[in-house]
């Protein structure tokens, strides 16, 4: 049973069509990756799922209900959290305040405190820097914060947009390990967008390749890695 399913999703920026009817599914408890080159439409797809962009047509079903076109704040309330491209932490707010913003829609103080404790244990580096303005963190730490903040809404499905972007290689490893940990321990379904296909396929259960706003391939990570055109285009030969 899929937690999240896109069907024939079409999205335009004014006259420019960015997605030409894409379909994909995220089964419950799985990590699904969407890989593709610059400008392929990955960010557009995630922003449409989380309600920042409105689709021209097509449906987005989440836990069996069509959420296409709902306002962003209603989609968060339903259980989709989005750690956006470029991290977008609130730079003047402290790490702790950023985490609290992640729980903006929640009223259960005790539950929020538990979740902050959980984010601390997942990302000890954040715990050490809690009182620091988020803008003073390194890129990798900001990415951890963006993921931790997304977890604070207690989502059923997590959207990650290029968590490896602009981050020191040593921290990329840590972050990808944490993504696996979050998926396993919280049973959270994850849709992971990446340009770094090697990394993404290594931790995913299923993968889609997007090119110029169309899904080109949909297969298991092993099959995608063996696919000659994927190797040529995304895995460096």
């Amino acid at each position, binding site marked *: 049973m899929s937690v999240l399913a896109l069907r024939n999703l079409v999205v335009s920026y004014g006259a420019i069509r960015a997605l030409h009817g894409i379909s994909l599914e995220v089964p419950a408890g799985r990590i699904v990756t969407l890989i593709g080159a610059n400008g392929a439409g990955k960010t557009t797809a995630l922003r449409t799922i989380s309600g920042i962009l409105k689709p021209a047509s097509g449906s987005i079903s989440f836990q069996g209900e069509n959420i296409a076109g709902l306002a962003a704040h209603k989609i968060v309330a339903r259980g989709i959290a989005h750690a956006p491209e470029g991290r977008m932490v609130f730079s003047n707010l402290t790490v702790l305040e950023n985490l609290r913003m992640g729980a903006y*829609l929640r009223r259960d103080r005790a539950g929020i405190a538990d979740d902050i404790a959980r984010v601390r244990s997942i990302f000890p580096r954040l715990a050490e820097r809690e009182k620091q303005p988020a803008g003073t963190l390194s890129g990798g730490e900001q990415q951890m914060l963006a993921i931790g903040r997304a977890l604070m809404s207690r989502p059923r499905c997590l959207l990650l947009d290029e968590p490896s972007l602009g981050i020191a290689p040593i921290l990329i490893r840590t972050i990808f390990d944490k993504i696996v940990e979050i998926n396993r321990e919280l049973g959270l379904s994850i849709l992971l967008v990446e340009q770094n296909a090697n990394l993404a396929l290594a931790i995913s259960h299923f993968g889609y390749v997007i090119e110029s706003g169309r899904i080109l391939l949909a297969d298991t990570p092993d099959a995608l890695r063996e696919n000659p055109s994927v190797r040529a285009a995304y895995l460096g030969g």
Partner: protein
Amino acid sequence: MIEFLQQLVNGLSQGAIYALIALGYTMVFGVLRFINFAHGDIYMIGAFAGFYSAPKLLALAGGGPSFAGAALVLVAAMALCAAAGVLIERVCYRPLRAQPRLTVLIAAIGVSLLLENGGQFAFGADPQAFPEIIADSAIDLPASWGEFSLLTITVGQVIVLGSTAVLLLALRAVVLHTRTGMAMRALSLNPLAASLMGVNTDAVVSFTFAVGSAMAGAAGILTAIQQPSIDPLMGINAGLKAFVAAVLGGIGNIPGAALGGVLIGILEALVVGYISPTYRDPIVFAVLIVVLLVRPSGLLGKPEREKV
């Protein structure tokens, strides 16, 4: 010395007015990155709301000028201005939010002209005498204070400063310690990320207009207590000065707006007292230009930077 202190007191009570109006400019800029040029006219609406409601509200509070009556008038004007601010945003600005910033700016100028001319039509163009809602008089300082007893402080000034302090502290508490305040700060830092956290942008924008306009409405009443002559164009000059105050303090920065307002008020009083009233406006604007050359983001504003 006493004369200097006297100018300071006068400047402070005028500065409080600028500070209250400046908050609305800066808060709206914070969440929408847009200058609401009609904001000064909301201050005028506040004064006229007091003008028309005062007789009934004073009667309600027992008739005649009184603290309770003045408080009622203040609250009524704030509520009416809050509603007007929300309505203007909803009808005139929100439909244009996806358009280039310039479009909304021009719409705001249009709203401003509408309020000024509509005000002249509805209230008459001539200045009106604001009713006495509080018995204003000079407070005699004790003779034992030596030369300080020569200072003239009026009941009106004390009310202006006291009310402003209360409003500023209340606003600070809302912004720092409530969910909506947190949402406002998040929205001003990164609108997209704020939406992804579940912030309802439209609701927070409405709230921001309500609070900013209420502050301007309060300023309208507090001004009228000190200078009981009001007219439909009174918002132009006060609005401009308050805008300067907001920019001076760092537009988008709430404590900055308060500081800028107080500084502009004091500066004006000093220029009027020691140089000449003629130079009041030129010097205020010259100071603005100098500050912006030295510190483009204003006194308390932080230069905008995003770590990528």
